[in-house]
């Protein structure tokens, strides 16, 4: 068994709204091993980006524990937090909004170094920036241009270079490719893959795109309305999805073959409001396999086989009997 790198226990994040508490992330647990990638997948508004931000303490968690190498991040003071921030970075979804429009490329990449004073002399910073730009495949002649002069793929490379500047061991990738077109997506995903191998990085990869998740993840967690409904290694979930929601999601992936007719599971209704969610299974209202037990009892995320767990009464019943 690989070394546990990040362990999240009972993590909750509620937002205060006018109509009550919004349960963005509601009691989730997961583990990421060193050097591996956890793919966090789910539809919009299910709390996956919030999870990524809470893990880095860009948002304060409502309750729970976040253990980095066994230490609880939520208990860190300012000084320790600063050290932690050097170890954990984030790449954002929108390469247009995540780069300061008033700074040139080299300034943006150098910013984490300047903030943390890890490198003191100007010359050293320049050298570091040049090597980072080379690592992510940016031509060094672009060092003085501004982000608005570049295309989406290159901007995302800047974002990655900035995240790498402090030699972190963990990066949250918050939908890093969903704002890019498909050919650039592949470039960026391959770059991430190479970087992970070279630098031994651990990723939390947030995405709504199952094919992207399949490409990058070692383990996959499927989220629905603030809860993890299924957790699995990357291979078996695509072969044998267990949770009804996962099945429905997977049936939505198009297959580029006209002869294959497949059963498409169409979910009815909308995602219920995350403000004061009903008791019982979150998926109850839209589930095609629902039973009475699902209405009032929240299913727990229980292991069903080696490396797989699922939160569904139906599956649990089948396994038992």
């Amino acid at each position: 068994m690989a070394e546990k790198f990040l362990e999240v226990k009972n993590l909750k994040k509620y937002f205060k709204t006018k109509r009550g508490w919004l349960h963005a992330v509601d009691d989730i647990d997961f583990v990421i091993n060193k050097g591996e990638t956890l793919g966090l997948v789910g539809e919009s508004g299910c709390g996956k980006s919030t999870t990524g931000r809470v893990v880095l303490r860009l948002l304060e968690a409502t309750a729970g524990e976040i253990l980095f190498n066994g230490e609880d991040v939520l208990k860190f003071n300012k000084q320790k937090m600063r050290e932690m921030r050097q170890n954990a970075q984030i790449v954002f979804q929108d390469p247009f909004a995540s780069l300061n429009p008033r700074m040139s490329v080299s300034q943006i990449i150098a910013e984490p170094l300047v903030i943390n004073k890890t490198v003191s002399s100007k010359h050293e910073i320049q050298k570091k920036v040049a090597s980072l730009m080379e690592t992510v495949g940016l031509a060094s002649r672009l060092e003085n241009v501004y982000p608005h002069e570049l295309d989406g793929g290159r901007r995302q490379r800047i974002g990655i270079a900035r995240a790498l500047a402090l030699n972190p061991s963990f990066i949250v990738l918050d939908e890093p490719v969903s704002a890019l077109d498909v050919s650039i997506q592949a470039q960026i995903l391959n770059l991430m893959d190479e970087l992970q191998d070279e630098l031994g990085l651990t990723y939390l990869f947030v995405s709504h795109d199952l094919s992207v998740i399949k490409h990058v993840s070692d383990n996959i967690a499927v989220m629905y309305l603030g809860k993890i409904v299924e957790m699995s290694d990357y291979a078996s979930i695509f072969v044998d999805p267990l949770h009804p929601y996962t099945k429905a999601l997977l049936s939505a992936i198009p297959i580029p073959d006209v002869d294959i007719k497949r059963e498409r599971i169409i979910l009815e209704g909308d995602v219920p409001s995350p403000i004061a969610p009903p008791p019982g299974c979150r998926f109850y209202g839209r589930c095609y396999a629902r039973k009475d037990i699902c209405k009032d009892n929240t299913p727990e995320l229980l292991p069903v086989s080696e490396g797989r767990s699922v939160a569904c009464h139906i599956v649990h019943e089948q396994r038992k009997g």
Partner: protein
Amino acid sequence: MIYVRDNKKYSTDPDRLRCKLFGYATKTVGDKILSNVKVGTGIIPSIKKKSMFSVILRTVIKSKTAFAGLIIILLLILSAIFANVIAPPVFDDRLGDYLPSWSRQDLNNRFQQPNMEFWFGTDNFGRDIFARVIHGSRISLQVGAIAVSISAAIGVMLGAISGFYGGRCDNVLMRILDMALAIPNILLAIAIAAALGPGLINVMIAVGIGGIPGYARIVRGSVMSVKEQEFVEAAKSSGATDATLIFRHILPNCMSPVIVTMTMGLGSAILAAAGLAFIGLGVSPPSPEWGAMLSDGRRFMREFLPMVVFPGGAIALVVLGFNMFGDGLRDALDPRLNQR
């Protein structure tokens, strides 16, 4: 920065321009950019940093009104700098010495209509109105620049704090500023000037304080929208302190409306200072303050126009200039209109 065609790094780089350079170098040898590039290897210089200033200036000059405004402002600055060259000290026969042209009285030449010797005529003490208007530009420019700096510096700070921290701090600060906003600007300036007493510095303070709430409001709004953007979060995630976030990341992205307001504010500050001088709260005589000159000329307005027309015209022209330039600047700084 040397790229070799067969180098492996070539393939990892998505740089289209470079592919073009290598692919078509022989075809376009005559081209300026390619003339020093050999096929296969070449040195591509880093793209030079474009200064914000030059880009903005170019956009401003494209607009005719803004350009006219710029010319007026430049004339004002030039006349302030070279006031002693344009209207040099005059030799006074009676005292046998050089006297400043703006304060030299010649009672034999009172109320002269504009002529070749006195371009704008002379006033009730026989002083050269042209010299006084030219020297007055120094006072106006000083008052305008310093008053605007006072209001912008304090206003931006308050707005940034208020917008960044939000919550109770924001509430308290903004309510105080609301109270200040409730008082008309000129009335506030009059009250402050009356309390502090006459004098150039007091005028600057009086006019400057009146402008603070306006800047604070503008900056607060922009800070609130900019601080939600992801690049701020990115800086936060690498451990930036609040001060770094505000000064390096947020404020530089909030400056466009502030710069526009400052330009327009210069005009209104000059106007307010002239207004204070007109009612006797400003610069004390015999300083050639335009507002004070207007006030002096008011008594003779029916019989002798030059004493009001020229200082009044100067005020109007300068305020117009700053407003026109500010309008152009707003267009230039607006990213939506900015199609470079």
